[in-house]
């Protein structure tokens, strides 16, 4: 009964909100409800989600620095103007060219798992609008980011420059081969789809470094693959779900 109630309430929510959506519940930015306030609400929401996923990440909260940066980077600057009003919803958003900006919860989680340090040099494959790079740039010394779609690379470069993220360098190239001139990297994050983990990227990882690959169709992350290279250069891959879910029940 409880299950059915939850189910029906979820669907009712989706459809009722759908019917009313355009006119009634569209959040409008007003003088009293600034982006800053919305951002803080988002941080609280992400913190709540993290608390509920604590069993899987092994801690109740994410790195304080990550959460602080999430509360300062203006996400609305990284989405198309017509979607500004949705920028601080905890959801992925389309940014054109068939690409998306990840859900803030996932961005926070991935950034935390990368364990960024102030002296780190990080490589990102798949710049998109530049939001993940902007978050990282406030946590590390230097971010290098590669975007395959020329238009996105150009707009992200301009955007990051205008917003003062000066320790981010973007180039339009094939990310498969990484950026050997700036290798090795303390951390690498690959948000571009791939049928396998690109070996050149693993080679460009420093011993002790982490390579992160979120895997899944657009608007979703099915799992986070974390490739870790130890001091001896040996590789282990952890495959994490971004959600606290155990498939086994009962005695099994």
């Amino acid at each position, binding site marked *: 009964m409880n*299950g*059915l109630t*939850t*189910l029906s309430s979820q669907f009712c929510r*989706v*459809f009722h909100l*759908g*019917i009313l*959506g*355009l006119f009634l*519940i569209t959040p409008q930015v007003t003088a009293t409800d600034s982006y800053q306030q919305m951002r803080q609400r988002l941080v609280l929401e992400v913190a709540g*989600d993290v608390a*509920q*996923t604590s069993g*899987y990440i092994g801690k109740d909260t994410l790195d304080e620095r990550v959460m602080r940066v999430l509360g300062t980077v203006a996400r609305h600057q990284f989405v198309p103007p017509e979607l500004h009003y949705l920028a601080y919803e*905890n*959801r*992925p958003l*389309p940014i054109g*060219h*068939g690409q998306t900006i990840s*859900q803030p*919860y*996932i961005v926070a*989680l991935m950034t935390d798992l990368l364990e960024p340090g102030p002296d780190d040099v990080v490589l990102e494959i798949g710049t998109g609008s530049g939001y993940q790079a902007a978050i990282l740039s406030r946590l590390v010394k230097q971010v290098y980011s590669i975007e395959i*779609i020329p238009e996105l690379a150009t707009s992200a470069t301009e955007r990051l420059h205008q917003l003062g993220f000066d320790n981010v360098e973007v180039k339009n190239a*094939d990310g*498969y081969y990484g950026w050997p001139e700036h290798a090795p990297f303390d951390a690498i994050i690959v948000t571009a789809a*791939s*049928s*396998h*983990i690109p*070996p050149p990227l693993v080679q460009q990882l420093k011993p002790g470094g982490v390579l992160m690959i979120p*895997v*899944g*169709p*657009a*608007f*979703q*992350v*099915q*799992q986070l*693959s974390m490739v870790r290279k130890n001091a001896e250069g040996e*590789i*282990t*891959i*952890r*495959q*994490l*779900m*971004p*959600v*606290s*879910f*155990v*498939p*086994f*029940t*009962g005695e*099994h």
Partner: protein
Amino acid sequence: MFDRGPPLFSIAILSGAALAYEILLMRLFSIIQWHHFAYMMISLALLGYGASGTMLALAQRWVQKHFFAFFITNAILFGIGAIVCFRLAQAVPFNALEVLWDTRQPLWLLLIFMLLFMPFFCVANCICSAFSKFSGQLHRIYSFDLIGAGIGALSIIGLLFIVPPNTALQVIAAMGLLSAAVAWLEYGARSQWQALVLSIATIVMLSPVAGFSLQVSQFKGLNQALQVLNTEKLDQRSSPLGWLTTVASPSVPFRHAPGLSLNSPGSIPEQLAIFTDADSVNMITRYEGSLHKMAYLDFQTSALPYHLLDHPEVMVLGAGGGADVLQALYHRSNRIDAVEINPQVVDLVQERFADFAGDLYLQPRVSVFKSEARGFVTASRDHYDLIQVALLDSFSASSAGLYALSENYLYTVEAFSQFLHHLLPEGVLSITRWTKTPPRDGLKTFATAIAALEASGVTDPEQHMAMIRSWNTSTLLLKRGAFDDHAIDKLKSFCRLRSFDLVYYPGITRQEANRYNQLQEPWFFDGAQQLLGPQSAAFMDDYKFNIHPATDDRPYFSHFLKWRTLPELLELSQRGGMPLLEWGYLVLIVTLAVALVVSFLLVLLPLIPGRSNGLWSGGQNWRIIIYFAAIGTAFMFIEIAFIQKFLLFLHHPLYAASVVLCAFLVFAGMGSKASSRWRKQTTIRGAGLVIGGLSLLYLFLLPLIFDSLVTIPVVFKIPIAVILIAPLAFLMGAPFPLGLDVVSKKLPVFIPWAWAINGCASVAGAILATLLAIHFGFLIVVTTAAVLYALAALALPRS
């Protein structure tokens, strides 16, 4: 007016065009969007049939008075609407991927539904108004309606071989206008310039003036690939099996190698991507005759069986662009029989890009068969060292659960058993799948394999299986003989060199599992152990996803969702849990719910007290509702279930769907015509009972007949299928017009109302048939249909 009787030929053309439109819309939306939402929009749009009955029940007198104008207008509106409504619908910014994120999306979906509803509503208006106007000729009208629809079902498949789907839509729109012109001629008016104008309009509709291009979602694989600099479309072709686009990407190579080991030496050669319906991708790999450049092929999980076999004779099921054939060649296979269902894919590799592919399909050791995989194996008398079931579906569609509604006869207990029987004594069956976290496909394949081994008389299946996994693929091996120590040593060394994980082999320990691609817990290992243990059934029951083996009676391998888990998944959906939801199934449930609510309203609307139509005081209303709802639902149940049953005989989805559907409709049309001479009350009862009995009898007879004819060529199978369908379909054509005969004598307004009930029941029935089949199997679908026919026989209103 209409002294010559109803415009029968016009009705036949319209019915055919409408059925063709339904099939074509499914194709079109599968290309521009995704199959599951296409199913939803089109199923609901078919409620246009029910809505027309409701409308005519409320306005019958006016429509009867202006029948001719009404008929012609609706035929023209169908013709224009078929193309205009689709073009408007594809301009709606609906994004299926954002449905749970974006509250506007259900609104866009509603808008598309309303647009697609219109053409079906217009066609139904024509047919229903003809019934209403010519109530003395119900049997003839219905027979032209059904026969037209049957021809339409067959024609659209043929048409899609000749022209691309967007051009096929122009043809259907033209048919709408043509039907109006034909109606004018059938009307026999002196002034016939209107028919000439309509004929000219028909020609214009067929010309490039009415042409348009498809607007594919920017989130589909094809459009994502085309964003990359210097990508180029090299070839575009289409058939009912798919819309194929071949793309080259010279600047940024595709490098498609699912599950490739990080230890792989060398690089992946240049590839051309073949996108099917703008999404699912197949690669043609550049091959210049030197295999040493292909070393990466030995670093995928699917290479494992080649390390257990020397120079094997191989059958590849799902050859596609040739990746698995190349892998077999690389491993020095003696003979490779490659089976591919889509002839156009074969032509791309074999002809259009033969140079690029290094004449892969023309190599002396390679034979390519354009055939459906299961059917090919069934008919084959050969035995192989290795049967390789290739990784066919796309990762994103697979991980989002888009295939939940698709019947798949490759991953059933019976299919695996058949594959095992086509192995040589030491032969291996190898099945590679994408891995999902937490495990779904992998464990279901494992459970299916155990059941197949047991069904083949193996008493110790744990000795005959092995499974490994990489970062994102898993490969399961089944042997007819037991795995010996030598084979196990080779398997371990294969995995060690490639950093692949051992999931299962006879004698594995938990410490050996989950080493390289570490999950939170060794779920695959634990699951495999449970499935092989004494508590297997309880484990499957308790597991949060459905991993019970699929069977030929319930061929839904990709359905994993359990109702019990749904509340938890919905709760987690916004917190990273969305990929655990299975969209195909959820869409089916929502579609059914919406169809039932709308049907309920459409059926009850004409009953509002105080209406002047007399329905409220008509008497026996509940009998009419039960009768027409039961026969509408049961007709769809039997049609859908027997398409599936005959699919196992004809094996090809196109032959099965088009031949069976056409035969059902045409013979039902003949039955409708013949039934006008039958004595009413007793015959209807008899027909209902005989249909029920005959369909149940078929359930037991058909497998016996199919088994005995399994090896005969398909050209003989088709007429046999038609002959088998004929008596059942012939009888199924009778209850609707006979019932209309009975009720129209009581009150004319019962005709459109009964049409509304029947139309709504057909929509809900089609959805319900799939739902029942997923949960209980087609046996239950047919049994329920038999019960419904019996119920209809009892509920028939008294004369």
